[in-house]
């Protein structure tokens, strides 16, 4: 039987009654099995955690996932390459355009086509705006889970501004599906670029506002400092990526290590933590929002200089023809039809990963040259963030669980796919 001595991380707060040192003894044992979820306000979606509690101390946390498994990988095999784009939106649904771009990049690797420069710039702009939106969700939901309710409303106010931007640009507030193989569906017009500019001008002041509330806050420090510490070795061993890895001092950002979409030409820094606790990950994400603003402003400046250029490649085998020509020419109409219903990517396999707000989001696509994909595996970083919950929660108090879940920052659409 397990005794307290077997759990070295348990902090002994007071003397336990004699005979109760056997934790899982059915008669005298002290472990209570608590089921958290799958419906719970603070598990960031439908995650179920089975926790053995010794008083308030957690042991043996077992995460159970799959409550949002919608069969996306099978769906790609049935639908086809082009029709899968809306499904990629709904993976990590707080940053839809980033997921779209990751999938489009993997398909472009297979197809071997080139995205024009202006298309890459628009993609970078949209990706960074999506990253900001995702980190705002992180901040709002983690803060409200730890009791700071007003931050939730403040971050959602900023998110509404982003929604207004994306609504003006693409017609949808979220789940935009505005990226296509070969580029972007439509160009960013002057008026829309103006809106982006206004948002990005006022956004650093908003981040300053969040930091005023939280960064020096005694309660935030007490809840987050030295909670959920991930060491460098653990982070690499548990396949963590993104801010979870960078918070532990590992400087790995796919935008710098294996750049894509022209990221090597942008001027930005990658924030890295030191201790690896929840507070470090919070600081990393705040700074990433600032750096994303910086990159997005550079992208907007490039948009101003490349006016009139194409935003999507011209390759009738894989890329949709321009809509005005589709409406007037028979051949273009047929190409459009074939791309949507019968897109054939060349035989082979490819993997492409992007740096999403949660970590390394990658698509491993295998094609045999027919119109039915052989395999589309989605490497969602959220699944491995969830996998790290038992590691961080062992021996901690139960109230730290919400800080740990919030700081690991996963979205169940990507965990379960």
């Amino acid at each position, binding site marked *: 039987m397990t005794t307290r001595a077997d759990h070295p991380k348990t902090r002994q707060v007071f003397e336990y009654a004699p005979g109760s040192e056997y934790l899982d003894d059915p008669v005298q044992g002290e472990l209570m099995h608590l089921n958290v979820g799958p419906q719970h306000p603070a598990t960031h*979606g439908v995650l179920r955690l089975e926790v053995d509690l010794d008083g308030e101390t957690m042991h043996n946390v077992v995460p159970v996932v799959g409550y*949002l498994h919608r069969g996306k990988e099978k769906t790609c095999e049935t639908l086809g390459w082009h029709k899968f784009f809306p*499904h990629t939106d709904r993976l990590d649904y*707080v940053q839809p355009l980033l997921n779209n771009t990751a999938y489009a990049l993997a398909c472009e690797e297979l197809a071997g086509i080139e995205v024009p420069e202006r298309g890459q710039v628009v993609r970078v702009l949209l990706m960074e705006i999506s990253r900001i939106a995702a980190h705002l969700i992180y901040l709002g939901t983690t803060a409200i889970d730890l009791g700071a309710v007003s931050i939730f409303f403040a971050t959602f106010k900023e998110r509404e501004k982003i929604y207004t931007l994306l609504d003006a640009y693409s017609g949808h507030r979220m789940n935009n599906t505005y990226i296509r193989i070969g580029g972007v569906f439509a160009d960013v017009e002057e008026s829309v670029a103006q809106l982006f500019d206004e948002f990005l001008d006022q956004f650093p002041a908003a981040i300053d506002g969040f930091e005023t509330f939280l960064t020096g806050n005694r309660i935030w420090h007490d809840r987050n400092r030295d909670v959920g510490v991930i060491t460098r070795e653990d982070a690499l061993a548990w396949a963590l990526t993104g801010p979870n890895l960078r918070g532990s001092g590992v400087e790995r950002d796919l935008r710098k290590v294996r750049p894509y979409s022209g990221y090597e030409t942008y001027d930005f820094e990658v924030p890295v933590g030191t201790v690896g606790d929840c507070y470090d990950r919070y600081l990393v994400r705040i700074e990433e929002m600032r750096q994303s603003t910086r990159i997005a402003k550079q992208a907007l400046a490039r948009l101003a200089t490349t006016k009139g250029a194409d935003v999507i490649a011209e390759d009738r085998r894989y890329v949709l023809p321009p809509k005005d020509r589709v409406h007037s020419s028979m051949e273009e109409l047929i190409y459009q039809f074939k791309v949507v219903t019968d897109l054939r990517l060349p035989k082979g396999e490819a993997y492409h990963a992007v740096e999403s707000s949660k970590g390394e989001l990658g698509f491993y696509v295998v094609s045999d040259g027919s119109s039915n994909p052989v395999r589309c595996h989605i490497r969602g970083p959220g699944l491995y963030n969830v996998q790290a919950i038992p590691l961080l929660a062992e021996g901690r108090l139960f109230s730290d669980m919400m800080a740990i879940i919030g700081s690991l920052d996963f979205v169940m659409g990507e965990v379960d796919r």
Partner: protein
Amino acid sequence: MGSLKPVEEQTDSGFFATKVDWLVNWGRKNSLWPMPLGLSCCGIELMAMIGPKFDIARFGAEAARFSPRQCDLLIVAGTLTWKMAQAARTIYDQMPEPKWVIAMGVCSSSGGMYDSYAVVQGVDSILPVDVYVPGCPPRPDAVIDAILKLQKKIERESPMKTLFEGPEVHDERGTGLLEFQPNRGLVKTDLDLHPHDPRARAAEREETSP
């Protein structure tokens, strides 16, 4: 021409009863406390609706208590999978009467874009739904419109009749698909435990050892 009876005789309630009905319905419709079953992307739009711009607090519905025992409006926001179906039904059963259900988004209305092996094709397979809101995700304005339509539906109810004659009994709410216990039929276990009870999982693991 059929017999035309005065309204009071038709519904078998008098002037006083209809006024009490109106008052009770007015109270209920203006304090619909939502139970957000935020399963996926629609949950984000649900949060945006509770947020500052769309603000369902205007309709008395900002008290989103996450305990079903304290709510009367279940908003199923997101895709319901077969793995989650039992939990969703349990939450619905735990809500006290009167209760209403809004199926937010196409995934909960009809399965949405997911006609796959893991997705329930519409939450009305397992729950009775009052208002369906299409959209993927629906704008928060659309869900507020659904709440307004639900308020109009509540105005037409007759709580005095329920008080005196008892509630209408719906045995087979939904199509009864859940009575057949999806995915449980394959498990050979003699224990009749709640699905979330760990002893059931341990028994399943022993029987169907992988």
